[in-house]
């Protein structure tokens, strides 16, 4: 028993030492936060599969195996590297290896939109950082709080509606094994409205462990529509934590498309903090090779009359594995809650694995909550129908898988992004 405990802290300790040696002298988080984050990490360690929330996703094992030594050296990026990643109809902002780079970003003056790097924040704004994603709730948030770079702060002021999507490109460019802690803070002021695209890429040919944390505040009667596009390539191991808080009449929605990445872990936590707000989480993944995708959602219904909806679909090929773990938490005061959760998966190979764990924890009686999950193979009758009409088996199978995913791809309202997702999705088939 004690041996395991020692090993556990050893992995965390090695990582901490290496990161501390390489860390820049400037810290972007409040000092007290960094101290408590490191203390939490040293105490709890990076989670492994003994940890209930990481049962199907052994982060510690990956760090032990793939990131024994961390070099933290990066290639510089030029505008030409970024150009193909941009979305033409959006305002493109660029975050490289955890730091907001205004030189690569587009400067557009849009009423009500403020974009800053963490080191430009006022004391008041700085205090907002880590107000949502708490170090003591998860070791990976703690890791991020302790070592995050000069992240991005984005704010939409009261009652402004941003007419075009805002596209944040998070790109890592490691040269040698790296651990990148990227962080962003998004605040949508009362009555404001915005569409946000967050894309994740990895340029370079070395392994990167990317630990991303984003805090999102959707204030009274505000609306935030997010699209997350994950295409980090086979050298990337990433954890994405989204911590959102929604206020009265607020509306938050997210659609995550995971198309590549050796390991992708999504922690999507939404707090419905005031009455009458809603949240919609959607996700689509397709995995192949030895890829691993783990979608984890937590919707915390704290107040009455809120609504939440989740739809996650996945296709697992080869030796890959996909996980959906969704939790709906309805507190005592959250009467008249409507919560719906659905996860549908298709297994394409006998070596692939799908794990699902849809959880309901309910403490209020006047609620309507339901969840459903199904896992299976391609409908043989549908396949037969197509084959009988002269469509080859391969084409027929692709057609059916596309139809399976279409419902989610349709949710991406930005044409260029939708095309990009569809293209990659078809390629993966």
């Amino acid at each position, binding site marked *: 028993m004690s041996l395991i405990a020692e090993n556990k802290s050893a992995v965390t300790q090695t990582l901490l030492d290496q990161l501390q040696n390489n860390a820049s002298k400037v810290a972007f988080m409040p000092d007290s936060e960094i101290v408590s984050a490191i203390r939490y990490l040293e105490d709890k360690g990076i989670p492994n599969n003994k940890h*209930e929330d990481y049962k199907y996703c052994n982060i510690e094992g990956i760090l032990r195996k793939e990131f024994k030594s961390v070099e933290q050296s990066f290639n510089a990026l030029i505008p030409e590297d970024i150009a193909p990643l941009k979305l033409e109809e959006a305002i493109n902002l660029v975050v490289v290896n955890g730091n907001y780079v205004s030189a690569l970003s587009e400067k557009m003056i849009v009423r009500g939109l403020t974009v800053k790097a963490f080191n430009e924040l006022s004391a008041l704004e700085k205090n907002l950082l880590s107000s949502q994603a708490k170090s003591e709730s998860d070791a990976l948030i703690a890791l991020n709080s302790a070592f995050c770079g000069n992240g991005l702060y984005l704010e939409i002021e009261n009652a402004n509606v941003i007419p075009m999507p805002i596209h944040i490109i998070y790109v890592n460019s490691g040269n040698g094994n790296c651990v990148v802690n990227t962080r962003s803070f998004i605040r949508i002021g009362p009555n404001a409205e915005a569409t946000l695209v967050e894309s994740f890429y990895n340029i370079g040919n070395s392994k990167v462990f990317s630990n991303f944390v984003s805090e999102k505040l959707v204030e009274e009667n505000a609306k935030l529509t997010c699209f997350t596009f994950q295409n980090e390539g086979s050298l990337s191991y990433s954890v994405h934590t989204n911590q959102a808080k929604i206020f009265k009449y607020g509306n938050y929605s997210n659609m995550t498309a995971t198309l590549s990445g050796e390991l992708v872990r999504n922690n999507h936590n939404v707090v419905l903090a005031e009455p009458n707000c809603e949240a919609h989480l959607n996700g689509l993944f397709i995995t192949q090779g030895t890829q691993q995708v783990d979608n984890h959602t937590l919707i915390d219904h704290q107040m009455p009359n809120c609504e939440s909806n989740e739809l996650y679909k996945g296709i697992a090929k080869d030796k890959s594995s996909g996980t959906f773990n969704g939790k709906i938490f309805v507190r*005592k005061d959250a*009467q008249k809650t409507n919560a719906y959760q659905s996860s549908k*998966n298709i*297994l*394409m*190979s*006998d*070596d*692939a*694995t*799908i*794990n*699902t*764990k*849809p*959880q*309901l*924890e*309910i*403490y*209020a*009686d*006047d*609620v*309507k*909550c*339901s*969840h*459903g*999950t*199904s*896992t*299976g*193979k391609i409908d043989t009758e549908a396949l037969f129908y197509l084959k009988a009409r002269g469509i080859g088996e391969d084409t027929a199978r692709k057609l059916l898988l596309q139809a399976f995913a279409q419902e989610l791809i349709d949710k991406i309202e930005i044409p260029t992004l939708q095309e990009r997702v569809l293209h990659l999705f078809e390629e993966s088939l």
Partner: protein
Amino acid sequence: MANEILEEHIQNEYKWGFTTDIDADEAPKGLNEDIIRFISAKKSEPDWLLEFRLKAFRNWKNMVEPQWAHVSYKKPDFQDIIYYSAPKPKKELASLDEVDPEILKTFEKLGISLEEQKRLSGVQSNIAVDVVFDSVSVKTTFKETLAEKGIIFCSFSEAVQEHPELVKKYMGMAVPPTDNFYAALNSAVFTDGSFCYIPKGVRSPMELSTYFRINASGTGQFERTLIIADEDAYVSYLEGCTAPQRDENQLHAAVVEIITHKNAEVKYSTVQNWYPGDKDGKGGIFNFVTKRGICLEDNSKISWTQVETGSAVTWKYPSVILKGNNSVGEFYSVAVTNNYQQADTGTKMIHIGKNTRSTIISKGISAGFSNNSYRGLVQIKKGASNARNFSQCDSLLMGDKCGAHTFPYIEIKDKSAVVEHEATTSKIGEDQLFYCKQRGIDNEKAIGLIVNGYCKEVLNKLPMEFAVEAQKLLAISLEGSVG
């Protein structure tokens, strides 16, 4: 209105809460190797069984109590429990007349009159009962009738003496002594239980039943049930439990193992009604039970049906390991919690063989300040082609101070598997109540009606005698829970 009814219900005390004055032969409190040797010697067990117990105990010492369940309770002090309590005088009993009349009176109070059973023997729809009193089997009825068919139905200790080869072969097959904390504890200290063997090609002519009762104070009940159905055999097995009303929490850690051979079928039904504690959550039984069946060979079937209304804390997951091809596992459950009861119950379906099927229907009802969780695992192993699972777990909430939770784990490693899971949580619809009331059915009866309708899918699976009892039990458990 709501409060009045609730009050009335709270007054409704546990009607099985009496103790029986009979001399009991007890071991000293505490647990160590000597106690285990004492129990083993008391029951004049063979050496291999003592070894089995000691091995389990040595493992248990290194194990920690599981913390993952969604329940909170004061950890039992394992040194403060009497691990052996047998009613005195303990001598061979040839007929019912020799059973301590006090015990017989207890059974009459409980509504299972052994005398009557005896008298009615020969009548078609009767049940053979094995009665376990403070972990020691008191009397098995209809033994002779069953023996004609070759069915062995006796207490576990008797089986150890008379059929050691069967016990040795099958014990620990479904639940190894090192399986989990409470199974290990049980393996070390179990005192008695029921044993049942249905030989090849025999359909049991009657329902077999075990009746458990904890009586002495400060004791824990650790019984073990082992059911074996040989090729083409069939048996329907019932289990019932009650306990006296006490302030302290008593521990019940049983193990039930079912093994089915080719084409065999076992149907296991439980109506669990241990003392749930009083309205303030004081006292009650801790029910930490490991139940597991193995469909060892092709085309076999194991079906668990449970109605859980008692116990302060329940921690129970009747499971099926579907090893044989085309084997079938079923789990039907109604779990009711009221006052401060906590239940964390569900099932595990492990698909190993080809074309295996499993069905899970779980209905949870929480009222008062209680918490009711469904926790289940459906695992499709690699190579379990064409496995099929359907799960449905519904929760019904009565009152705003209780909780209903679902923790289903689904792990699939075979592409030809089809697995579905559905869950809903809701309360009794105002419109449903209104509809009943409009037709002159009062509130109380309307709730009973709706709840029984809600549980019907499960209650239908119970043998007739039990279904009636279960319906009554549901009504009593929930009386006045909604205003």
